[in-house]
């Protein structure tokens, strides 16, 4: 049923944009990104700029809301592995090496194995998906991710019927992740999804942003993007994916179980104990705007939680 769900959405019958429109858009994005990159790292203009994707397809799941600026998306975020400040990820990740990289996929599946980043990039169709991102701290952005629908990756490893959850783990490497020298949160960072959440067509394994491969501060070389959940669910720099029958205990659940639950669905009606979740500040905007249930993706995902008490399962 889970797989059927994915196949139903699989037909690549996305209204294909005319090639010229698409190329124009891409060159615009690339130009913008390159300019922003040069402004941020003037000394690195001649150095290796992130690789650009070719043959990206556009996704019908994309929002048409205005996309945030490149320097907002890559210069303001949480990635405690690089430090707890909002600019620490950008400031402390310049030397991060994301190759070679492979992800161990194991647990309750029939074909456990390794997922090499080069295979992920070359053997899967990459698509651009422009998603809203709502941080649990009540700010938000619109981000043009590039990636692969997670279900199409997970299917290759043939999870069996006992698999009820998927657990994701971030790399531990104190040299590459200086933030891991301090026990701010229990390392490694782990996250989890219910199987049907992981197989949902909206759930993306992102490999890029703004038409380029992910910069380290955004979770290179691959990260989860679950747009209807608070941003911390979208775990970065993943090295392990494990199918399990037990609900994984995420890092933030360990850190503060009364503040962060397993589901972490965006919900304006359930406040964080220390602040309201009713509104959010879209980065770049002066006024706060109302937060929507499931971050505006209720039509797609609300049915996953039918009959559940979302206040208890926060």
């Amino acid at each position, binding site marked *: 049923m889970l797989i059927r769900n994915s196949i139903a959405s699989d037909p690549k019958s996305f209204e294909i944009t005319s090639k010229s429109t698409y190329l124009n858009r891409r060159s615009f994005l690339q130009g913008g990104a390159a300019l922003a990159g040069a402004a941020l790292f003037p000394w690195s203009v001649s150095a290796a700029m992130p690789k650009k994707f070719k043959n990206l397809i556009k996704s019908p799941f994309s929002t048409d809301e205005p996309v945030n600026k490149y320097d*907002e998306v890559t210069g303001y975020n949480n990635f405690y592995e690089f430090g*707890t400040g909002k600019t620490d990820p950008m400031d402390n990740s310049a030397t991060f090496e994301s190759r070679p990289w492979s992800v161990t996929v194991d647990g309750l599946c029939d074909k456990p194995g390794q997922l090499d980043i080069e295979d992920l990039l070359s053997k899967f169709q990459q698509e651009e998906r422009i998603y809203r991102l709502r941080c649990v*701290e009540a700010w938000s952005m619109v981000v043009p991710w590039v990636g692969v629908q997670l279900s199409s990756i997970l299917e290759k490893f043939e999870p069996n019927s006992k698999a009820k959850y998927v657990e994701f783990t971030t790399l531990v490497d104190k040299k590459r992740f200086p933030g891991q020298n301090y026990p701010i949160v229990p390392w490694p960072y782990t996250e989890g999804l219910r199987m049907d959440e992981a197989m949902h067509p909206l759930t993306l394994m992102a490999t890029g942003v703004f038409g380029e491969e992910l910069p380290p501060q955004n979770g290179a070389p691959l990260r989860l993007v679950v747009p209807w959940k608070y941003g911390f669910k979208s775990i970065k720099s993943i090295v392990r994916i494990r199918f399990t029958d037990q609900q994984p205990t995420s890092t933030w659940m360990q850190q*503060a179980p009364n503040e962060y639950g397993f589901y972490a669905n965006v919900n304006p009606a359930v406040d964080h104990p220390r602040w309201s979740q009713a*509104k959010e500040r879209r980065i770049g905007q*002066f006024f706060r705007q109302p937060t929507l249930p499931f971050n505006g993706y209720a039509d797609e995902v609300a049915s996953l939680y039918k009959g559940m008490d979302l206040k208890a399962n926060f």
Partner: protein
Amino acid sequence: MARQKKFPIKPFVFLACLGPALWLVYGTLNGLLGANPIETILRDLGDWALRFLLLGLAISPARRVFGWAWGMRYRRMIGLFAFFYAFLHLSIYVGVDHFFDWNTIWKDIVKRPYITIGMGALLTLIPLAVTSPKIMVRKLGGARWKKLHKLVYPIAIAAVVHFFLLVKADVREPLIYAVILGILLAERAYRALPQAMLRGSGSSSSG
């Protein structure tokens, strides 16, 4: 006093204290405050309120421990700057961050301990700011004025707790402030100690 006549230091100290606020104005106008300038302003103002509060509390220990009496001349100004930054901090929270959304703000005050505590600290600072002019010291009488201004201790503790409660996981920064405040309060407790201990040992020997 003689030194002050030779060279007017106070205006420079005043300008230095105003510096962080001027920087925020300049940074806002020139887009230098990052992707979320409102958050930057709010945090910076809170940081500076706390720093001036602790600086003000450091002046009399500095005199007692190191013999630096000159600090006393700036104590009132520093205290008033603590109030200035705390007041701007609150104003930005109310008028910009939540844009006078009184419903949300009221819920914050009653439901979130860190807001309740922060708000309490700021309200308690008001009578201290109001009674800072020399004429108020005279009006109240030295003893009563001193008693009133002892409120700065619970205010400083509340300010540090406010900071502690709002961070998500990384408590290192509030911890630094807590340690500094701890030292400043310990110095005072230590000074108060010998007398109390004498009294304590006296009563125990008689009993």
